[in-house]
């Protein structure tokens, strides 16, 4: 994402760069900088300090007990794997499905307005609303099961809520439109001249896709993957409403919330929250690094728009 804004120009000298870091640039960057510092960085550092302290209010001495407590308890450590098991497949699936669909739609199709309008719906409605609607629609007596039964595809209603699958469906309903629209925006930005050139040089449609379109879309795919993964990693409302919050869908965000709010042990809850943030951030950095490595060379010529 960062490379959206970074534009290197070879002609600007170091001297000019220093000169341009003038008082206006500094002044204009300040409000947002201070906001992020006060509302994001400082609380994180404050939380870091808290997480190393004993006592339910974080008033005690420095200690490692909160982290020892987390990593010593298999019920807590398992939440990490549960979260990965839920978040990774859904993210992969949403992105993998979005790529061919966006490829098909990149030059515009019939009913495009209608399709995108309905697709935006779950993003606007948010996780809680989708979860509540799913309880009705995918429930044992909901329309989905009724329909499948009436056409004779199944005998007994499928269990699609209050389990692992329900949470995955909820995340997919939210994540797929998001990934799809993002990748679509990226793909429709690739100049069609590149495709024409590839065609004229004798490449098949499959080769054109594989060698031209896909490499140029990799930054977009990486962005979509990262942003969906962030959303899927903190599955809190979906896992609570559509899963079994004490059983198979006890994800790490539930563990953090429980520790901080139900057991009222803020330092412990903060420690879990920080572990969660750190793991997630590591995955994002890995994906971004990987995509940059793969996209290098492919985007050097600048395939976007003319």
């Amino acid at each position: 994402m960062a490379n959206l804004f970074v534009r290197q120009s070879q002609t600007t000298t170091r001297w000019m760069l220093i000169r341009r870091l003038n008082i206006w640039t500094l002044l204009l960057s300040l409000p947002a900088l201070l906001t992020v510092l006060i509302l994001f960085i400082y609380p994180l550092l404050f939380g870091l300090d808290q997480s190393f302290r004993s006592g339910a209010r974080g008033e005690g001495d420095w200690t490692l007990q909160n982290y020892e407590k987390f990593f010593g308890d298999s019920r807590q450590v398992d939440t990490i794997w549960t979260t990965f098991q839920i978040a990774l497949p859904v993210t992969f699936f949403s992105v993998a499905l979005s790529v061919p669909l966006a490829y098909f739609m990149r030059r515009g199709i019939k009913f495009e307005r209608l399709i995108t309008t309905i697709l935006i719906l779950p993003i606007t409605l948010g996780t809680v609303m989708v979860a509540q609607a799913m309880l009705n629609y995918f429930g044992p007596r909901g329309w989905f099961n009724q329909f499948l039964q009436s056409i004779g595809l199944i005998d007994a209603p499928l269990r699609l809520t209050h389990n692992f699958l329900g949470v995955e469906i909820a995340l997919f309903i939210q994540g797929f439109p998001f990934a799809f629209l993002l990748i679509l925006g990226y793909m429709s930005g690739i100049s069609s001249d590149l495709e024409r050139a590839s065609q004229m040089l004798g490449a098949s449609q499959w080769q054109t896709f594989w060698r031209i379109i896909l490499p140029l879309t990799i930054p977009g795919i990486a962005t979509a993957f990262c942003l969906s993964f962030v959303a899927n990693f903190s599955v809190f409302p979906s896992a609570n409403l559509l899963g079994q919050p004490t059983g198979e869908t006890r994800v790490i965000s539930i563990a953090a919330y429980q520790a901080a709010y139900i057991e009222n042990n803020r330092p412990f809850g903060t420690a879990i929250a920080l572990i969660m943030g750190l793991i997630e951030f590591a995955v994002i950095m890995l994906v971004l690094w990987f995509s940059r490595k793969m996209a290098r060379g492919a985007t050097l010529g600048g395939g976007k728009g003319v």
Partner: protein
Amino acid sequence: MSNPQVSKDATILKKTVLLRRKPSTSSRPPLKKGTLVGKILFYGLIGFFLLNLVGLVGSVLVDSFGERWFGTWLPANWTGRWYEYIGSDHNMGQLLTNTLFVAVTTTLIALLVGFPAAYILARKQFRFKGLLTGFYLLPMLIPPLAYGIPLATFLIRQDLHRSLAGIILLNLVPVLPFVILILAPFIEQVDVSLESASRILGANRFQTFRRVVLPLVIPGLLTAGLLSLVRTIAMFELTFLIADANTQTLVVALYGDAFGAGIRPNQAISAMAVIYMATTMALLVFALIFIKPTQFVVQLKSNKSK
């Protein structure tokens, strides 16, 4: 009108536009169209997804007006009493005011703080720009609960949790990078030479901003504002952490109802969901009224010139 030079210029302009348009469409070889199988697959998949989305929203709507609904396509009798029920159960006026106040204030602050940041990212080149961009966007890459728990603890310490101010500050964290990310490309599209021209003609920085930059970026401000409004209304995970009975928003109340299923009849929760949905939609429509089609023309033109 009567000035011959102007009309001559106009015809030249028309001709060049026409001339430029023609070869760009006809002299290039046509691109291969998608195959029939691809078409069927695409419309099948998208259609299936959209059908389920409509079903999700529809089943909530039908449920909220149904007297009793078990295992049939539609409820036997219709009623509006679930709305009365939920209306007396919640302080609906307060919920609506809280939701709108938080969403509008957060959005306005985010636009005000985010605009200068987006401006320098779109316009200026300086050292550490990549670093600054990454810093601004950092909160988007961490799951809300991970920084939400320490931030909420911090806000509670500062005694800000009993007022809407705390909720606004909490929501500002993810919305600010979001606004910067959307605004920057819009600002980038405005031709820099317009600003230079304005300065050369004697306008100072403030006048240039007010009379040149601001009017041209209005579509961007509206888009960013609209999206962050919707996002704040649906933002559950953060508001939930510090809201109490008096400061909670619609989505938090909806989650509470849905999580405590069994306390209230399901139809009443559906009614609550419909009220939440209607608020979001009403706000979207209301905001869209203010986005005039002519403002998009400006954006389209600058898009083309790129």
